[in-house]
């Protein structure tokens, strides 16, 4: 029996807080969009603003953590075992084949995860922050001289990003079940370590 710590305390705090904030941002955001009514429009708007500030703070801390601990290297894309990972999800997993990539403290992410999370970090999150900030500060930008469709474009991108996040969330949650037991990955993210199969 051996246990390696994969996810440090801050790592887990950051992950779960971010998950919660993004979920709440999605709920309040879609309420502002008119998809449903939960908090009431004004409260949804205020919550969305507050949550985005909280998320930005968290992301700043997380960025600091990634840079100072060298954790950012975990997200460097690699082609090593990329094909094997894809093959595992497409065929191996149905045959009960073993996971092709062993998790290690310094390489806790498989090549597909690296790609997905890197995309999440450099694409979706910055796009959401940028479009969100433009959306929020639009009235202060004296932007009425701008093209009439500007805010439309900003909001469309922001909503696209939100749908992207939702799709990511669905896939992400499902893929947690692909560990050696269905709940193993989830448990690891909660307690920080994984037990060997």
């Amino acid at each position, binding site marked *: *029996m051996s*246990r390696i*710590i994969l996810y440090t*305390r801050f790592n*887990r*705090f950051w992950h*779960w*807080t971010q998950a*919660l*904030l993004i979920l709440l941002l999605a709920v309040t955001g879609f309420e*502002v*969009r*008119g998809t449903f*009514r939960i908090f*009431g*429009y*004004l*409260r949804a*708007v*205020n*919550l969305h*603003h*507050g*949550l985005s*500030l*909280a998320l930005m*703070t*968290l992301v700043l801390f997380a960025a600091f953590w990634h840079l100072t601990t060298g954790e950012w290297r975990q997200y460097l894309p690699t082609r090593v075992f990329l094909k094997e990972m894809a093959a595992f*999800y497409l065929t191996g*997993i*149905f*045959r*009960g084949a073993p996971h092709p990539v062993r998790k290690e403290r310094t390489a806790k992410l498989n090549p597909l995860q690296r790609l997905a999370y890197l995309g999440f970090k450099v694409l979706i999150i910055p796009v959401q922050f940028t479009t969100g900030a433009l959306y929020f500060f639009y*009235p*202060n930008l*004296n932007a*009425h*001289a701008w093209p*009439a*469709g500007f*805010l*439309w474009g900003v*909001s*469309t991108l922001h*909503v*696209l990003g*939100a*749908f*992207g996040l*939702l*799709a990511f969330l*669905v*896939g992400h949650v*499902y893929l947690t*079940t692909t560990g050696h037991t269905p709940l193993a990955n989830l448990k690891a993210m*909660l*307690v*920080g*370590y994984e*037990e060997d199969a």
Partner: protein
Amino acid sequence: MTNMTSPSGPIRPPRPGRFIQALAGLMVLFLPVLATQPPPGPAHGAYGRVRAERNRDVTADHTRFKVLQGPFKDGDGSAVTRACLTCHVKAADQVMATRHWNWRPAATDRKGYGKSTHLVNNFCISTLGGNQEACSRCHAGYGMTDRTFDFTKAENVDCLVCHDTTGDYEKVKGGYPNPAVPLAEIAQKVGRTSNQTCGVCHFFGGGADATKHGDLDDTLLKAPRSLDVHLSRDGAAMSCTDCHGARSHEVAGPDYGAPADRREQPRFAGEAVSRMACTACHTATPHASFVLNRHYRKVACQTCHIPAYARGGLASNLSWTWSTAGRLKGGRPYEDKDANGLVTYNTIHGDMVWAKNVKPEYVFYDGSMDFTLLTDPLPATRPVVLNPLHGSYADPDARIWPFKRHDGDQPFDPVQNRLVAPWTAGPKGSGAYWGDYDWDTAIRLGMEKAGLPYSGKFGFVKTSMWWPITHMVAPKEQALACGECHSRQGRLARVKGFYLPGRDRAPGLDFLGWGLVLLTFCATLVHGASRVLASRSRRNP
């Protein structure tokens, strides 16, 4: 299995207590936005106290003035004016420079608009077609019976209509006092103007209570706080002139177009200025919420704070169709009413629509509007908008304003392509429309009286007119909720040209987005189900 409670292992077990604490700490960051707004405070009523104190400051007792003892001849208002002018020697000169006298804003203000000009409105059309005698019941003067009225005669100024404090003063045709009015008694009790003195004319525009403006009617005099937070005795107990400040008898008014962003602040203590802009007292940032304050860039205060007009119980006129006027029953004029007692047809007016508690229409408005004169050629568009509004989303001075839209039609001269001024108010046999119901004669006589040409041919043209809504400001707890506008079919559904969150969506974006989410979900379902089946078949080959 790992012994989760082992404290001596190389890896420290998770400490959910701290984890939750940290989460809670982060939540605290945005908890303030969850807090509810404080409940509305009690009515301040400061203005009511100020006015009571003002009245204590009065040093003159008009009941003791010999010149006001009378008796005055019944209906001889000019005699009273002469008495007033023995002390207030400059008052008539001041009044004669005002809009209330000239029925025309100062020449520098606007392009000669005003009731005494060729200006047309969508109700009684024009005073010029021989209707001065009837219309001048609301003129601050005596004897305006036709176009020859002498605007320079001081004794024709009507002091009492604005300075009566008894409520018993009443004007009749020509602007003369009703002969039954006890002039001496009223003259001895003169005082400051009041909501009542302003209201005797301004509540009755269009011919009857609540008819014209929609946000001004008699119910304001006894308004509950919910009807008008400013004028109500239970609210701020303000008077009209607290906002429509007066200087040398000129009462501040919109001058045929109120700048939507007029900010009038006294520059030094005691400077009397009008405060018609909400911002003059409330500032441009009156809300605790930054987001709400920012709305002021594009949304007038009135838009959210006047949820509906004609809220006092009286119906306002929304449509007046002159073309159907003149039907008789058994040779006599008649009136039809609907189940609610509102007039739907009237021989002298035609088909009418009245309504209470009406949601305004909303338009980007920069505070200026054009008016149509009898001498203007009509545009090709129908309906003819008698006062086209200026403003658009791109205009930095324009804001979304609430309006009452008034529809109807009017007689016009199709040969000259101009509106006409029919003579409406006159007795049977005179040729006036309400006497004989003959449009051709009424128009011919009216245009003669107005000194304007008439081709001899008339038709009817659909017209509409915009009336800005700015009174009947509701208490803040009745202000519009966000969803009234930020929703698919909200109040601003028809205000185009800009992106409104909650209302506008890129076409197909939902299809695309939810499609993506659903596809991902289906993919995981298929993948997961396949895994379950595959593992079963591995176990039971």
